[in-house]
C-alpha cells in the first residue's frame, strides 16, 4: 500500500467508526487480539515504522525482534496510541483501541519512570486497577487485595510497603509486571521485560508469561536477546522499519530473515537507521 493510500484510508476511517463500515477490510482478523494495517510512524519527518501489516495469533507469546532503531518499542507504543501514527489502523479484538483499553495490559521499560518517586510497591501495582476503577473513584479494599495477590505472584509480597526506590532493579521490573497482571487484560504489551534482570526476576517473568499463555492470553514482548527467542516465545514479528517476517518462531527466526533484518541496518549504512536510537525520546532500546 502506498503512503498516500494509507493516509487517505486513515482519514476516511477515524478511530471511532462502528464495526460495520471499517470491518470489511479486516473481517478475517475480527477474532485476532491485534490487527495492524498500514501502520506508519515518523519522528521528525523520518520514518521509524513503514506501512506495517500484522495480525497476531489468537493466543500465545509473541516476540518483537529486530536491530536497534528498528522501531520495536515504537510499534508497541503506536499500537497503544502513545505515539501518533502517520497513517494506519490498529484494532484490538476487531475494535478500535480506544474502545478496548480495559482489555489491554501494558508493561513499559523500567527506565521510563523516576524510581525515587514517593510511592510504595503496592501503590504502583494498584495503579493496574485504575482503568477498572475509573477516575474520581477511590481504590477499594478488593482492588488492594487483588494488587497484593499480583505482587505475591511475582514473589514480592514481602515488599508491598517498600518505597519503589528501595527495591533492586529486578524487583522494580517485577513490580511493573505485577501492575500489568493487575490489569487483568486479554492482550498484553511488554517492552523489554527481560532487559538487565537477575536470575530470580527472569524466572518470575517466565512463570508469569507461561501462566498468561495457559489462560489463553496474548502477550506481545519487545525482545532483544536472539539467543532466547526460540525457547521463550511461540511467535515472532521481525521488524526493521518495515516488517521483515512474522509467524511461528521456528519458521520466522531463521538465519535468512535475521540476516535481512540485521544486515540492512549495517550494510547499506543508512544514516536514517543508524542514527535513530540516539534520537529516541528517552527510550534506550
Amino acid at each position, binding site marked *: 500500500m502506498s503512503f498516500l493510500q494509507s493516509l487517505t484510508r486513515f482519514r476516511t476511517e477515524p478511530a471511532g467508526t462502528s464495526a460495520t463500515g471499517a470491518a470489511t477490510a479486516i473481517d478475517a482478523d475480527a477474532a485476532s487480539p491485534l490487527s495492524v494495517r498500514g501502520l506508519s510512524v515518523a519522528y521528525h519527518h523520518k520514518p521509524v515504522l513503514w506501512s506495517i501489516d500484522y495480525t497476531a495469533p489468537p493466543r500465545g507469546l509473541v516476540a518483537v525482534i529486530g536491530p536497534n532503531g528498528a522501531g520495536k518499542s515504537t510499534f508497541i*507504543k503506536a499500537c*497503544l*496510541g*502513545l505515539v501518533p501514527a502517520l497513517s494506519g489502523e490498529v484494532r484490538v479484538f476487531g475494535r478500535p483501541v*480506544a474502545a478496548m*483499553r480495559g482489555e*489491554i495490559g*501494558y508493561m*513499559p521499560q523500567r527506565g*521510563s*519512570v*523516576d524510581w525515587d*518517586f*514517593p*510511592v*510504595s510497591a503496592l*501503590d*504502583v501495582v494498584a*495503579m493496574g486497577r*485504575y*482503568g477498572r476503577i475509573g*477516575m*474520581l473513584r*477511590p*481504590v477499594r479494599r478488593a482492588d488492594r487485595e487483588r494488587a497484593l495477590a499480583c505482587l505475591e505472584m511475582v*514473589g514480592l509480597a*514481602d*515488599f508491598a510497603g517498600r*518505597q519503589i*526506590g*528501595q*527495591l*533492586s*532493579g*529486578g*524487583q522494580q521490573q517485577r513490580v511493573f509486571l505485577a*501492575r500489568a497482571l493487575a*490489569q487483568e487484560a486479554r492482550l498484553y504489551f511488554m517492552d523489554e521485560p527481560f532487559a538487565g534482570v*537477575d536470575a*530470580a*526476576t527472569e524466572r518470575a517473568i517466565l512463570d508469569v508469561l507461561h501462566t498468561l499463555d495457559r489462560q489463553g492470553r496474548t502477550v506481545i514482548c519487545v525482545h532483544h536477546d536472539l539467543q532466547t527467542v526460540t525457547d521463550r516465545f511461540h511467535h515472532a514479528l521481525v521488524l526493521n522499519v518495515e516488517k521483515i517476517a512474522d509467524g511461528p518462531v521456528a519458521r520466522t527466526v531463521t538465519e535468512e530473515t535475521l540476516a535481512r533484518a540485521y544486515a540492512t541496518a549495517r550494510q547499506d549504512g543508512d544514516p536514517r537507521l543508524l542514527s535513530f536510537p540516539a534520537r529516541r525520546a528517552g527510550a534506550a532500546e
Partner: protein
Amino acid sequence: MLADLLAALSFQAGYNTRIVLIGAVLLGTAAGLVGTFTLLRGRALVSDALGHATLPGVVLAFIAGSALGLSSRNLPLLLAGAAASGALAVWLVHLLSHHTRLTEDTAIAAVLGSSFGLGVVLLSVAQRLPTGGQAGLGTFILGQTAGMTEGEVWTMAGLAALAILASVALFKEFRLICFDPDFARGIGWPVQRLDLLLLALVVVVTVAGLQTVGLVLVVAFLVIPPVAARFWSDRLDRILLLAGLFGGVSGAVGAALSAALPGLPTGAVIVLVAGTLFLLSLLFAPRRGVVATLLRQGSMGFRLAVVKALSDRRRGPAAPVSGTVALWLRARGLTTRDGALTPRGEAAAERADRNLALWERLTRTDPNAIPDTALWGIDDATRVLPQATLARLREGTAR
C-alpha cells in the same frame, strides 16, 4: 514588635489581621499541595514563568479598567488579567519547546524575562495615569498584605480553598500522571487534560497569592514546602500533608509579621519562613537529613570495625585495632586489658560470626535479595531479611 507578632498569630489582633491570617494559611496549604504535584510533574520552572508573566496582565487589566472608568482597583478584573497573561505565557512556552528546536528551559527563560520586562514597562506607563498612584500595583510584585480589604481576603481564601479541594479530590489521578504518564495514557486517561487542570490550579494559586506572596516569589512558595516535606517521608499522602502544613505555617507567620511590621514585603517574609523550614528539614530530617546521613555513615563504619575486630579475635591473636574501637570493646567488657576476648566477648563474637556468615552466603547466592535499608554484616540477618529469603538461605545450609 514581638508582642504584635504573637498577638497576630494567636488571633488576638484586629479582625482584619485575623482574616488575612486565615487567608494566608489557606493560600499556603494550597501552594503546598499544588506545588507537590507540580514539582513531581517537573513543572516548577513553568510555574515560575507563569508567575512572572502575570505582571503585564495585571497592568493591562488596570489600564483597561481605568479607560472604562472602573474604580482604581477592581480586583476581579486585575486577577482575570493576571490569569490570562499567565496562561498565555504557559502556552507560549509549550509552543516554543514543542515546535522549535529550543529546549524547554530556554523557552521558559525567554518567556519569563520578556514578559516580566513588558510588565515593568507597562507598570511605569500605568503609574503616570491619573489613577495609577493609588492603585498600588507595585505591591503585586513582592506581596503586601497590609492594605488588603476584607473582600480581597475572601477572594484569596476562596481561590485557595478551591485549589485545596481540587488537589485532594484528584490525588489518585495526579499521582498517576506524575509517576507514569504513558501508563495513564495506556489505560485511556486524558493525561493532557489532567495536565492542563494541574496548570490551571497553579494559575489559581498564583493569582490568589498575588497580593500576599507576590508574583516574583510565588514559585518559591510552590516549590519550597514540598521539597522540605520530601525529606520527612517516602509516602505521597504524608508529603502532601506536610507540604500543606509547611505552606500554611509560612503563610501564617508571614502574614503575622507583616501585620506587626507594616513596611515588610510579605512575600519575602513568607518565603524566608518556608526557606527556614526547608533548611531545618535538610539538616535534621530522620533518615534523609544531612545529619542523620552523616551519623549513619559514621556509625556503620564503626560498627563494622567492631564486628571485624570481634571476629578476628575469635580466630586467635589479631592485629590491634584503632583507639575508639578498642576502648569500646573494653568498656562493654568484651575484651580484657591485653586485647583478648572475655567469655562475654566470645559469645558476642560467635553471634557476630554466625550473622556475618549468613550475610556472606546471601551475597553469594542471591545478592538482589539484600534490602537497601539493611546494614550489611551489622544488622541481625534473621530480623531484617524477609522470611522467604531466610528460609531459602537455611535450605542452602542444610544441603
